[in-house]
């Protein structure tokens, strides 16, 4: 198979699908032109991610990476969520095909964007460098 069983499980039974009403943070990355958009909404309580939901327009691995990313950050302090790397997402899914690695990058970026939104909304100061690169989108990962 193209995808590991773990990917297929998260694709077939995605966790945390949906949109949190009145979220504390929203991150949307990617663009429809490139074929993937991920949107993550967060509920933060006492600096901890109490709930995370996603919606995704994209391929099987885009759905699976969003799904597992929401699982991986759930219950964690927001600073820890920020440390979620695309590599950790790939590992948690037992690997991704090379040309699908960009989906894990997108998932990392969606989480970061949601946390940034939470920081911004709550006037929490941060080193802007940690969000560096977010605005570039991921189209350049597409080998265009």
């Amino acid at each position, binding site marked *: 198979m193209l995808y590991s069983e773990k990917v297929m499980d998260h694709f077939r039974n995605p966790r945390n699908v949906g949109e949190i009403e009145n979220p504390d943070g929203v991150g949307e990355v990617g663009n429809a032109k490139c074929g*993937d*958009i991920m949107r993550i909404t967060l509920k933060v309580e006492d600096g901890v991610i109490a709930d995370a939901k996603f919606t995704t327009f994209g391929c099987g691995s885009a759905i699976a990476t969003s799904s597992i990313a929401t699982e991986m950050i759930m219950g964690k302090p927001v600073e820890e969520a920020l440390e979620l790397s695309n590599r950790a997402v790939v590992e948690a899914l037992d690997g991704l095909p090379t040309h699908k690695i960009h989906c894990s990058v997108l998932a990392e970026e969606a989480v970061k964007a949601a946390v940034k939104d939470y920081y911004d909304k709550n006037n929490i100061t941060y080193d802007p460098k940690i969000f560096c690169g977010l605005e570039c989108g991921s189209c350049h990962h597409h080998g265009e």
Partner: protein
Amino acid sequence: MIYLDNAATTKTGQVAQQAMVACMEECWGNPSSLHTPGQRAAEVLERAREEIASAIGASAQEIYFTSGGSEADNQAIRSAAALGRRQGKTHLVSTAIEHHAVLHTLAALEKEGFTVTLVPVDESGIVKVADVEAALREDTALVSVMFANNEIGTLQPVEEIGRLCRERKIPFHTDAVQAVGHVPVDVEQQNIDLLSLSGHKFHGPRGVGALYVRRGLPLFPLIEGGAQERGKRAGTENTPAIVGMAAALKEACAHREENAARERKLRDQLIAGLEQIPHSALNGDRERRLPGNVNFCFEGIEGESLLLLLDDKGIAASSGSACTSGSLDPSHVLLAIGRPHEVAHGSLRLTLGEETTEEEITKTIQAVEEVVAYLRAMSPVWRQLQKGERAYVIQ
């Protein structure tokens, strides 16, 4: 399993398999060998050549066997380019919706100094004869226009384009990989000088194809070596596969009309069913398309996840063409017919075969409806469309 990916490949039929096994058991000699086993193989090889030739209105000496459609395309184009170069002609004309075997060969030739004009197609996916005519130049060495498109199934005005080329003495190639065995193909009537075909698209074996080259038109080898195929294609002849391909094509042509009529009816049912899905659109011309081809775009979702979920429901489909599955770019064909990127990503190709049943079509319509609805429910794009935050591309 409901198999609706016959454009990607067909199952090798019993007719072809039996011919192959018989050949491997009885006629397995090297056709270039002078001894009896070799000459027995040479005989079945030449009989197969005659059968393939007669299926497309050619004569046996005009058929060169290759390892498939891609090789035939590469050789046809490179050979015509080489001939053109000798005559000082370095302009090549083709269309925006060709198979990559054509497009990438043209791109390689561009790097070698040729100029390539890719004629656009209209929104139904058909190239205009007048546009091809307008593209022709004094130094045009080749026109290559596919017979039937592999993604959206559109049939091109090959005969008219062939006539234009004939009048101007420009070699005309057509990639007929998707057409042969499915729609009438006749190199004489359709003014074709070079034609590519591939065994596995009509229930023949994999890894074998043929290049038709009109008598009198020089052909240069792509693969050099032994004197096989009259010195134009080296390599020990793949007799079992060639014989299998000939048997499959004979069978396909014998039942072509009835198969096409059945498929066309089911195809139209499938199209009618899928059109019920809101914000969906048929890609390609409604009439001038392959009997078995259905191709849709669904707004707000992406094709790969669509086909993976259909696969879970026991339906084998494709999004774009099989051989570009490693790529993340949307189909160049859908872009060429004017679908914007975001919609081009959400395409689904369903290609019927002789075995497809009405029941399968009903089940498929149902399954696609469900899967599209499910994916839209988790798509941020769909939500935006529904909330009016984004404009529908497909009404």
